[in-house]
């Protein structure tokens, strides 16, 4: 077993209304960042876990996303490659 660190990005499902992202976009436009087309606000979760290897660690975190970290109805998730912690 080794210790791995994996980062997870959770974002609102594309196509669903993202009022928080829209509010941030509006504020950016107010600041003069006119070219900004779209903003999405999500969550960033870092998990440290013991696992046999990097693939096992990534599989475990994918399972965590499906069961708890992301809502399957409203959110998408992406996990980064596992790194040794």
């Amino acid at each position, binding site marked *: 077993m080794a210790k791995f660190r994996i980062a997870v990005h959770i974002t*609102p499902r594309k196509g*669903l*209304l993202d*009022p*928080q992202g829209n*509010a941030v976009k509006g504020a950016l436009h107010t600041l003069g960042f006119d070219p900004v087309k779209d903003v999405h606000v999500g*969550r960033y979760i870092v998990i440290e876990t013991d696992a046999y290897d990097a693939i096992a660690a990534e599989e475990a975190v994918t399972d965590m996303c499906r069961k*708890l*970290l992301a*809502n399957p*109805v*409203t959110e998408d998730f992406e996990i980064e490659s596992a790194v040794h912690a």
Partner: protein
Amino acid sequence: MKFGIVTFPGSNCDYDAFHAVTDVLGEEATYLWHKDHDLQGADVIILPGGFSYGDYLRAGAIARFSPIMQEVVSHAKSGGPVLGICNGFQIACEAGLLPGALMRNSHLQFVSAEVRIRVENADTMFTNLYERGEILRVPIAHGDGRYVAPAGVLDELEAEGRVIFRYADASGNISADANPNGSERNIAGIISESGNVLGMMPHPERACSPLLGSSDGVRLLESILTRVAA
């Protein structure tokens, strides 16, 4: 009839529900602690409003893993009545007892207000003392009340008469203006396929006395009595 009212860390409408059941309905109620595994013989379970586990991660996401929720899910699966109000609705969705999810209000603000909801189906164990199309006045108090589900699921809910309440104006019109949180199709409450789990964002337990501005919620609780007792 015995009502079991679940108290999670952060629940804040459990006392309101207790008051409505015992003082208004005159029935027996008991608090069920989230760490317990025992429903204490309750016939009806109420998942009350509040901010269980601080709404960490997502509203209702952590509460669903409480020991008591395993018992509540078994109770629901065997046909026992479960009423999820506000945070209780969010928990019921996260636990898979109801389809869809509750997201941040479209205008991002917490809303505490009295709203009107239209009874869409009066042939359920929770609404049999109302008339279809009747307009009720009930309070809402939430920041994450925008009901969302895939279009196919919404169509299925509509086709099966499982949309129970919709936000409406005083004349019963379903409009964007009457929608306090951006819920899809103005949905304020839905019922499970088997008809024994109702989830709703408005608070019927806080509309149980003229002193509080409305008594329109009383018949919801009384409906459960007639159906479960029968």
